[in-house]
């Protein structure tokens, strides 16, 4: 660790992993409810478990991004963090607010929670991913602004690199597009229209900048390749991401009451969205092949390469699969969407956060890399989680294809629930594979506690 204040990243990373574990547990609960409908009913209804699963995902990724920023920015800017105290205070505020929100979801019915938290003042609740009560949303904005203030001040007083510029752009974008979660027009078309400005423009817009910056940082560290080479690629990748991703929002505007030209704009531009993801993969492998040093942290390099490949598969390939208007006409909102959502979120954002944690955590604990034994376990966890998500994706895709066929394409379409029964086998397989994923995650956590000969810092 080169700067003392980088240490504030540590609690963020630990919280991220803890919440990740929670997310997976709720995923498994829901997976079981898919095949055993009344499992844990009425204690944890499906809709509540779903909310917890997806909100924990978003929150742990945000913890990961913030931790990454606190770790990277001092090192890139070559100066201590503007205010480590503020960073630590924000950590506790965010953690407590997040925990209270989850408890709220689980303890009282959602409608009661809405009443209790002043949803009638400004109605923002009840929309997927943005279910948080108004107070939580306001809390998120305050935490985000204070966080941005902290890191922006750090960058301003220190060295400016293309990595910090891209990271800052991404994080500011994240905060700005979240503001659309406060805008909830009564017109359902308008509601959906702007809902995507948060949801889509996050994962297929500004988050890609964060992804690119994190990946570039780790690659520079583990390969020792010259900054200029990496920087040029970074700029090309983010330009392509923004051009295709911004207009690509149209792939959610096909038949929701928006003008017809979105079918063309959405199809053409979103069809090109895989290109920047592809470039990221090429870039990662290229850098590792041209490496000028052998970094002792082999696990981090593996995560970096894995991120490139899995993001391309999950976002690029599985996204492309259903992004053209004539295809989406049939696949919209089916298990194909869920298959893509899982592989893309894991491959791009979960993996890149795990990657930076894998790289930074040993250093934060005073060594360049973990012992060989610990790294072997970590690599096992990499393969278990990654292969599990690939199979979860394949099973859901199979279920999705059948679903589309039986329920929508067929001349004698079957009702939704009848079809769900017919594809139950795939849901069982998804659930068992989910258990494998959980084992992988537990191994990941265990790898932090394995002793052995460590490499000096």
């Amino acid at each position, binding site marked *: 660790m080169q700067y003392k204040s980088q240490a504030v990243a540590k609690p963020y990373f630990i919280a991220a992993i803890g919440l990740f574990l929670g997310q997976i547990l709720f995923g498994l609960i829901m997976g079981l409810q898919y095949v055993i409908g009344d499992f844990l009913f009425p204690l944890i209804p499906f809709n509540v478990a779903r909310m917890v699963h997806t909100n924990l995902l978003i929150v742990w990724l945000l913890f990961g991004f913030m931790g990454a920023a606190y770790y990277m920015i001092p090192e890139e800017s070559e100066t201590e963090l503007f205010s480590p105290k503020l960073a630590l205070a924000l950590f506790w505020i965010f953690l407590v607010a997040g925990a209270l929100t989850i408890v709220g979801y689980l303890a009282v019915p959602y409608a009661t929670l809405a009443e209790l938290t002043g949803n009638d003042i400004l109605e923002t609740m009840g929309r997927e991913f943005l279910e948080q009560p108004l107070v939580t949303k306001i809390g998120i904005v305050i935490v985000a602004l204070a966080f941005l203030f902290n890191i922006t001040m750090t960058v301003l007083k220190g060295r400016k690199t293309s990595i910090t510029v891209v990271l800052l752009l991404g994080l500011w974008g994240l905060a700005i597009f979240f503001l659309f979660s406060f805008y909830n027009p009564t017109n359902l078309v308008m509601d959906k229209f702007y809902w995507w400005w948060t949801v889509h423009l996050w994962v297929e817009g500004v988050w890609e900048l964060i992804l690119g910056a994190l990946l570039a940082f780790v690659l520079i560290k583990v390969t020792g390749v010259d900054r200029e080479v990496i920087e040029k690629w970074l700029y*090309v990748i983010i330009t392509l991401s923004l051009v295709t991703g911004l207009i690509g929002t149209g792939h959610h505007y096909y038949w929701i009451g928006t003008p017809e030209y979105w079918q063309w704009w959405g199809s053409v531009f979103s069809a090109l969205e895989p290109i920047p993801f592809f470039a990221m993969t090429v870039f990662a492998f290229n850098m590792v092949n041209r490496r000028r040093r052998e970094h002792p942290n082999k696990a981090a390099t593996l995560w970096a390469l894995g991120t490139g490949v899995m993001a391309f598969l999950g976002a690029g390939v599985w996204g492309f699969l259903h992004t053209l208007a004539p295809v989406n006409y049939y696949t919209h909102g089916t298990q194909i969407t869920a298959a893509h959502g899982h592989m893309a979120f894991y491959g791009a954002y979960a993996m890149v956060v795990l990657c930076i944690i894998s790289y930074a955590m040993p250093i934060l604990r005073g060594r360049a890399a973990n012992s060989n034994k610990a790294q072997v376990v970590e690599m096992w966890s990499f393969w278990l989680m990654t292969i599990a998500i690939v199979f979860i994706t394949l099973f859901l895709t199979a279920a999705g294809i059948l679903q589309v066929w039986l329920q929508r394409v067929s001349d004698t379409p079957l009702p939704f629930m009848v079809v769900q029964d017919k594809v139950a086998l795939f849901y069982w397989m998804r659930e068992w594979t989910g258990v494998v994923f959980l084992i992988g995650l537990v191994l990941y956590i265990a790898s932090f506690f394995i002793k052995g000969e460590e490499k000096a810092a």
Partner: protein
Amino acid sequence: MEANVTLPLQKPVARHLPGDLAIWFFIAAELLAFCVFFAAYAFTRAKHVELFNAEQLTLDRNAGALNTILLLTASYFVVRAVQAAEAGLKDKVAPWLAAGFLCGSGFVAVKVTEYADKLGAGITLSTSPFYMFYLSLTFFHFMHVLLGLVILAILWFHARRGNYGPDNATAMNNLHSGASYWHMVDLVWIILFPLVYVLR
């Protein structure tokens, strides 16, 4: 004006990309985007031949042709700028770039009057498939012209300081990269003009 420089090169030069690999990756992605759009236009037209043939006549073909000439000329001037830099004539680079920039700006001016005319007539993206494509394709290209102009302006700024010459490999790489991007903008229009304005 003519200071023809010819450096006959007997030995074949090692094959290499004019500009950075990253910019060529970018150019390839852009070309792919336009390819998809061109094909979408053409195949949609096949379904509405009469509509497309009728509405195509409402476009200003003279403006389209004039714009083609402006872009071609801009490209030619940029070529001359690069050649001046290659030949070490550092003080010639900026004027050629400026000339290219002027022609590009001319394109923008002509295009803006075309848009004003169409929008004034109440035409929007939702008017008909033909106008949807006309506006989408040309506007997407228009954005590229603007970006290209920004790049030319940056190159011009550096050229004024005498940065471009065979003695500065990094600068030459940047110059070639920027020039290649500009030519791509030209290349796409060469297809776009006949396709949307003339082919029937």
